[in-house]
């Protein structure tokens, strides 16, 4: 029987998220205490041994960023929690914030201690009013009990956290755009390098990690890095939260070890497709991810597999699409999303997404020719290769993947279009 592996979600359902006493009763903040009794280099060794990779999509090794920030001598240093979660199909960070807020704070505290950072921000998308309220209460309670502020647990360690709200912009989840937004500016990305660990928030060294990444830190202190690395696969250690949505019986967040197949997640945990329909395709990772056919569902959840698609697939969304739906209707919505969310700073993304939407609409409307197919193919390549930030680079992923796996659908649609070539 396939089951979840509840590591970072173990407390959920057992505690009232709005009660710090509940969290403390379930050994809350004891991993902070343990970390504070360790030498910093020991903590870094555990993170290195854990081989933990970021859970926000890109899968960057966590230990590398932590070490880079620890080495910076300029102060102040910041720890920023990325809770912008705007990628369609993703809701696991909201789930963590609403159900286990203190564990995220504990993770930020461990990060701050390990890197000698003194100030923290949680950047929460503006749509998450409820999560924001719960996180704010958790911060207030933690401060009152001495887990935030000066001389935490009577140690020479001070750290505090403020919340900043987004205001309806998906691109602000991109780390540089997010920093701009916290600074009170329009969320447009910066040219990198320098990376945030050297020049980040207000020009100071900054660590940015995803909510789920930070919520994992207490488990690594608890188990030790080596034991953590034994969960999952060789290339992807630990557990992953999966946001399961679409045409599926049990929608929701599931925590699974890396290496579980998508078929098991969909059928055993998600209960399969309702209403007697069959799976036609799934979109992996969210709007920026590939659309793959049913026959690929035996593929396992693993960063190495995700990387084949060159997108931020690692955030862990699975959107199940059944056989009643047309691939072009899906693509149109995805293209409209990116066209709306492009920040407009660079041409391949600003103009490209508009053209992409218009071309996809031709296929939706049975109005497409071979020329449109070729145009779409080269447009997608150019956007992927020349856009300035991840938004424009991954916006064409769904189109590129369907051109590959559902090419017959394009060819059929052109045939059915029956357009008279212009004379």
């Amino acid at each position: 029987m396939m089951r979840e592996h509840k590591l970072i979600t173990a407390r959920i359902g057992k505690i009232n998220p709005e009660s710090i006493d509940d969290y403390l009763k379930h050994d809350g903040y004891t991993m902070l205490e343990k970390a504070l009794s360790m030498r910093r280099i020991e903590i870094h060794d555990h993170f290195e041994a854990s081989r933990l990779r970021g859970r926000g999509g890109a899968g960057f090794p966590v230990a590398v960023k932590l070490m880079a920030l620890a080495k910076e001598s300029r102060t102040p240093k910041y720890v920023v929690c990325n809770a912008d979660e705007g990628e369609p199909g993703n809701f696991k960070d909201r789930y963590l914030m609403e159900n286990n807020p203190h564990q995220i704070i504990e993770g930020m505290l461990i990060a701050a201690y390990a890197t000698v950072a003194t100030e923290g921000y949680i950047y929460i998308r503006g749509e998450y009013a409820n999560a924001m309220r719960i996180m704010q209460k958790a911060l207030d309670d933690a401060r009152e009990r001495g887990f935030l502020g000066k001389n935490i647990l009577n140690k020479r360690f001070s750290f505090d956290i403020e919340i900043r709200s987004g205001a309806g912009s998906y691109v602000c989840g991109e780390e540089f755009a997010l920093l701009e937004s916290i600074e009170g500016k329009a969320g447009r990305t910066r040219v990198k390098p320098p990376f945030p660990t050297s020049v980040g928030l207000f020009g100071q060294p900054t660590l940015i990690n995803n909510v789920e990444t930070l919520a994992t830190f207490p488990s690594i202190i608890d188990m030790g890095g080596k034991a953590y690395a034994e969960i999952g696969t060789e290339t992807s250690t630990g557990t992953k939260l999966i946001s399961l949505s679409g045409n599926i019986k049990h929608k929701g967040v599931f925590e699974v070890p890396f290496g579980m197949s998508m078929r098991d997640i969909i059928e055993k945990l998600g209960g399969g497709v309702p209403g007697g329909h069959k799976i036609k395709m799934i979109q992996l990772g969210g709007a920026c991810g590939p659309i793959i056919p049913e026959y690929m569902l035996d593929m396992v959840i693993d960063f190495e597999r995700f990387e084949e698609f060159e997108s931020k697939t690692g955030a862990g969304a699975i959107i199940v699409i059944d056989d009643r739906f047309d691939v072009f209707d899906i693509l149109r919505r995805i293209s409209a999303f990116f066209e709306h969310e492009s920040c407009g700073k660079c041409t391949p993304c600003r103009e490209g997404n508009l053209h992409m939407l218009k071309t996809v609409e031709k296929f939706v409307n049975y109005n497409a020719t071979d020329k449109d197919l070729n145009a779409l193919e080269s447009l997608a390549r150019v956007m992927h290769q020349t856009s300035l930030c991840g938004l424009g680079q991954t916006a064409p992923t769904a189109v590129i993947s369907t051109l590959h796996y559902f090419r017959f659908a394009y060819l059929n649609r052109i045939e059915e279009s029956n357009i008279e070539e212009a004379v």
Partner: protein
Amino acid sequence: MELKRILEKYPKRQDCLIDVLLDVQNTKSTRHLTEVELARVSEHLGLPESHVFSVVSFYSFFSMTPRGKHILQVCRDVPCYLNDTFNVHETLESMLGIKTGDTTEDGLFTLEYSSCLGCCDQAPVMRVNDTVYGNLTPDKLRAIISECRSDDDA
């Protein structure tokens, strides 16, 4: 004066700009910002007005035109679309007698689209001001709208 009270809650720091603007906009029944307000905010935080204006035009939460007291934002992304069995959007358009982007004559409702609200496990989903409603059905929509209406009578 309301605006003054809001401004005084915040330190004079640029990084509070978005939160200040949200606060100002959300306390008004028209849910929009005026040029006079932007000028006051920029004065308070010591920022050029052009900067404040560029921020307001960048983020989709801000509006420079008056809107309804209840802003209905219907999610239009794929996970919601896959679960939208009765067309939430058209149902609302006909219930309210307006088109997307418009406000009802009584100033009570504005109908908008939204990108994914991060509640795809409750699809189809919409947001009314700060509250998210999921697993929508035509009956639920009717109930939500009449609740908004009776709020207003109270």
